[in-house]
């Protein structure tokens, strides 16, 4: 900014008579600079996602893609046989996998569907609990989504198809060639469902 548009200094002649005009011109110049600062600041926020990634990669101080690289591990994929099983302790529920077995590769994302039918005239609340064969293979099954994560409520005669999405890790021990994924459906007895605390109720 040159002096012509800045707030006038006190000269030997005193206050310049056109001080209002000088100020108005200066105000316009300053405001345009400040608006540029505001705009670039806003854009700077939007530049953060790419900058953040670039900065982390450049310095190596934070490994932003670590999770992804673990999935693409250097261990080669290999073929494994997968078997699916379902059990119910309750004659009123029909619980079965849509696919009994399939051949898959380690590292693939696998989608399978289980089907459950409530043959009774009453509502059933319950939860499926997984188990694995061989048991130690369970640690290599990484579930992204599963109906077993939550309690389920079935209306009378309701039929529902429910997904399981998982990855079998490539680090699966070499001696395991068949993995069985088995679910057992347990009914939650009526009245044992945990209710949220009521207001005024002391938790002491």
């Amino acid at each position, binding site marked *: 900014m040159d002096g012509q548009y800045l*707030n006038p200094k006190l000269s030997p002649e005193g206050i310049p008579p056109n001080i209002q005009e000088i100020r108005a011109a*200066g*105000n316009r110049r300053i405001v345009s600079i400040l608006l540029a600062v*505001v705009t670039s600041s806003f854009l700077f926020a939007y530049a953060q*996602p790419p900058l953040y990634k670039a900065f982390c990669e450049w310095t190596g*101080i*934070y490994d932003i893609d670590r999770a992804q690289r673990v999935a693409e591990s250097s261990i080669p994929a290999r073929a494994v046989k997968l078997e699916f099983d379902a059990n119910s302790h309750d004659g009123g529920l029909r619980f079965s996998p849509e696919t009994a077995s399939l051949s898959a590769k380690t590292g693939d994302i696998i989608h399978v569907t289980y089907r459950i039918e409530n043959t009774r005239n009453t509502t059933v609340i319950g939860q499926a609990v997984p188990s694995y064969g061989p048991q130690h293979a369970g640690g290599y099954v990484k579930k992204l989504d599963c109906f077993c994560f939550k309690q389920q409520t079935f209306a009378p005669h309701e039929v529902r198809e429910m997904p399981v999405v998982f990855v079998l890790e490539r680090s699966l021990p070499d001696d395991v060639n068949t993995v069985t994924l088995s679910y057992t459906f347990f009914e939650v007895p009526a009245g044992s469902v945990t209710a949220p605390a009521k207001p005024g109720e002391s938790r002491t």
Partner: protein
Amino acid sequence: MQATHTAGAADHHADHGPQPTGLMRWITTTNHKDIGTMYLWFSFVMFLVGGAMSLIIRAELLSPGLQYVQPEFYNQMLTLHALIMVFGAIMPAFVGFANWMIPLMIGAPDMAFARMNNWSFWLLPPAAILLTASIFVPGGAAGTGWTLYPPLSIQMGMGMDMAIFAIHILGMSSIMGSINIITTILNMRTPGMDLMKMPLFCWTWLVTAFLLIASMPILAGAVTMLLTDRHFGTSFFSAAGGGDPVLFQHIFWFFGHPEVYIIALPAFGVVSHVIPAFSRKQLFGYASMVYAIAAIGLISFFVWAHHMYVTGIPLTGQLYFMYATMLIAIPTGVKVFNWVTTMWRGSLSFETPMLFALGFLVLFTIGGLTGLVLAMTAVDIQLQDTYYVVAHFHYVMVAGALFSAYAGLYYWLPKWTGHMYNESLGKLHFWLSMIFFNIAFFPQHFLGLAGMPRRIPDYAQQFADFNMISTIGSFGFGFSQLLVLVVVFQTMKGGAKAEARPWDGARGLEWTVPSPAPHHTFEDPPAFNPAEAHG
């Protein structure tokens, strides 16, 4: 009127026809004094609203267990309390001081952009309504804490959208206000008043306004990204789509840390006027004060991740942010020592403004020291999200910003109203505030050190006693603030006539105009006497 009064430079009502009266006068006003008054009243109303919310919080924490509110509502209260106090009370209060005092201090007829000034103010009530009304929408208000961290802020109901829009509007208001203040200070000073002869309050606001225009748009960007993540399928912060929730924390605190100094710096400015006036000495170390303000403003942009030590930032980062944060203690220390040295061998008197300034000095120093404790990574990992942090920032925000605002209020009230306030009531207000503030917040240090987490409506038995003390203190503090209302109404209605310069130690151009300050002042630039400089 002189022919030189051209449009755009300033507003001159005398040139106009009949002026609107009643409500329309306030809606249409472009006068910096009217707008300053409206900012101050607005901030006081919001202060009471935010204060009522904090009393709901403290009532719930009076004893262990859930007594009065549900956890979701408790979270909404603490979120709105913070947003309202930061954006609705403290910031508009100091913008109000800036509007009233900066043109008077630098000898300008009005703010540089008088119409934009009106708009800056009138954006605030809609934003305040959006924020407070969000309590009543389905799902309630935002309950994330004022930091609005995803993933929770991506999942919340429409109250979150209302908070985001309110932040947009408040941000626009502060950006326009800041542009106005910077332009006024840089370009409207009376001839002869160099930057280094300018009153310190103007310096603190100049730096604050730069911090605002650089950091507010970043917050606006961050909340806009949140909004598009919520509704338009983007994944800036949503991990399910490849975004990074920690990135939001970086962006938020890149705004949020300068925001801390946006609140603190104008408070420093007010105190730098009050302490010299009641010590009857010039401010000690004016130039070092200016450099300290600039240094604080600059460093504040490079310390943001000290709020994020537990997010898994690398050791290099932790060390850098720890040392950089501690560096801020140096310019802040310069300021504290300069205020103390100003009082050294001064002819001190203890009217209400001085009492609040001294209260500020003592309590702000405590808050600053606990801030240094929290700056240490190893300690912070233990204290993160505990009541120690709550105690720390209330010492800085309440005892820092609010006490300083009260010092400024009592100091300039005679200039605004033309009457002296009731000194005994003012002193009563100070002592009640000082005592109850410490009863409310000092025990929270102990609670935090013992491990009580913040933002939880319930707590373990061993925290019961200190929480009860804290709640008693907060109710005492809250209700003693109503005294201000009494004092201000009394002073507006009458009282001893105030002279143009009611404080014999006060310096600066604002004391050369009569009390109450006429509607129009300094239409022609006043003569500036450098000996009167350095408020």
